[in-house]
């Protein structure tokens, strides 16, 4: 039997995509703005406390918001393409911010290379791939508990989680990330120096 896990009744584009993905993006932007203002706080203790807390929220919002918004989009009947777009919106926003930041001192080509190939950006991108697979599995599990039919575990989400884990391992964990860092550095030297 084919799995009937294609999603719930389709709601408007606004409700199934723009609202959940947009809110995640706005939360991230607002946190960024708030974080940047904290440096003006005179009290060192208050500054440190608020900065630590905001930093944690920033990491969650840019790196893990997919876990929340992907199921929401699914329940509201968003297509796979829409769910992908919604999940990647905030992480891509972060990448865009990185391009702008690096572009202050380097060419646009270098800034783009940097953003596409350095470990933090790649972990973010491949992390989303894994989180999407995980969210998919979570959604199916919830759906099945509510009487849905079909398999929970299929090749697609399983592979995406696996690819994500393997990639993150080679980028960040193997050799403390040094080998990967060095490879990108040498590639940069070959291309730009």
């Amino acid at each position, binding site marked *: 039997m084919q799995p009937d896990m294609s999603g719930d009744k389709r709601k408007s584009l606004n409700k199934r995509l723009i609202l959940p993905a947009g809110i995640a993006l706005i939360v991230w932007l607002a946190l960024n703005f708030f*974080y940047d203002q904290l*440096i003006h706080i005179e009290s*060192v*203790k208050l*500054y*440190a406390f608020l*900065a*630590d807390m905001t*930093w*944690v929220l920033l990491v969650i919002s840019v790196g893990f918001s997919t876990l929340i918004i992907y199921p929401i989009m699914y329940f509201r009947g968003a297509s796979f393409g829409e769910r992908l777009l919604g999940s990647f919106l905030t992480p891509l926003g972060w990448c865009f911010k990185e391009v702008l*930041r*690096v572009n*202050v*001192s*380097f060419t646009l080509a*270098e*800034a783009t*290379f*940097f953003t596409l190939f*350095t470990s*933090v950006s790649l972990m973010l991108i491949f992390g989303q791939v894994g989180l999407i697979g995980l969210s998919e599995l979570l959604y199916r599990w919830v759906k099945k508990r509510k009487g849905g039919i079909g398999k929970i575990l299929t090749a697609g989400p399983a592979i995406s989680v696996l690819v994500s884990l393997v990639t993150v391992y080679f980028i960040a964990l193997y050799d*403390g990330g*040094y080998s990967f860092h*060095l490879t990108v*550095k040498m590639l*940069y*030297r070959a291309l730009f*120096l």
Partner: protein
Amino acid sequence: MKPVATKKEKQLHAALSRRDVLKGAGYAAAAGMMSGLLPGLSFAGKEKKPNIVFILSDDHRWDHFGVMGHPWIQTPNLDRLANEGVMFSNAFCTTALCSPSRASFISGQYAHKHGVINNLAQWDEQNVTVLELLKQRGYRTGFIGKWHMPGPLPELRGVDQFISFTHKTGQGSHFDCPLVIDGVETERKGKYLAEDLTDFALDFIRKENDDPFCLYLAHKAPHYPFNPPPELEDLYKDKPIDHLPKSAHHRFAGMVNGEVYGGVLWNVEAKYKKYCSLITSVDQQVGRVMDELERLGVADNTIVIYSTDNGYLMGDKGHFDKRWAHERALRIPFIVRYPAGLKNPGRISEEMILNVDLAPTLLAMAGAPASSEMDGKSIKPLLLNKTVAFRESFHYEFFKDFPPYTVPETDAVRTRRHLYIEFNNSRRKAELYDITKDPENLHDLMGTPEGQKVLPGLKPLLDDYRRARKNAA
């Protein structure tokens, strides 16, 4: 113009006790008498040249010494060096990055001349090192430690013993770092690198020989990752960090914006304390070298110099790491101890000296002629406490490096009072600071009436430096 004395420098003056000064005066008197009676022990005497031990650490902030008034760091051996020698409170690197600065120390040249312009550029085998020149003057020479320039280790001409490492592209590791001992790759399981290198250094010093020796001992410590030896791991665990800038109190500050790639300081406070533990471990190794020189009875006729490749930003201006042309990244410690040859030991010299001055200084001390290829100049007159107009300004240069650090190409001029920075190929605007009023570079004077007053003197000076570099190329 009168040299600038910062708050830290005043603390250093205070830290040098009356007893130290008297002790120093005793040394000076003894040295003075000996120089008259025993010409062999005088500066660059004809009969017996001084031995030289140059110890270079990595990323050791100039103010992280007990003698510099740090609230709790323990550096008794380095403090002793300062108390018995001359401490230069205005010493600077000409490029605040490991490989270029290391190449500048050993060649006496600016990065644009020796060619190691960043951590990705290879050492040119045609470059002449101070060790090669000292070898020609009859010295037994040794390079032990961090070479840290890309590519294979060079064939260092004029070096009798060459022990280094290529592990992690020359960055090495604090533990179990394989060494290349005179060309042979050797596993060093269970060894702490700074201690291991010092063991080899002591062996080098002990070798019986009539020739004077020059040992170039280059440590990796206290460079990141901040992994001190286990016995020092928690040495500063409970110490406060009130002396650090506000940014350093935010535990993830090393992981925001550009710092995420350069600093990698998960929990800044904990990492900072381990950085300090690493400094103490370097101090211990310096103590071992000093003890051995004394045991061998050669300490008085051995010039011991301690310095580091560049400064380190620990939350200063919100940055972690180095590279930037700001004061905390430019300043380096520079201490010279030479009981048989220094005048008035236990003092501070406020003259501006540079990493490129090391090589010409060593040549002068060894009685060798200066090399016209070197950009630096000998600080020997300062060691002899002569009143000379030494240096009014210097050029700082930083070349294109790997983007994660996002520090633009930079040219800066540092005078005794001001620091003027221009960023090349970047949208970042020029910066100007009055070091006497603002040693932390927090108040940019560009666009202010005060800035407009001094800029016409600084900009042409920087342009002159740029022109000189262009002509040299």
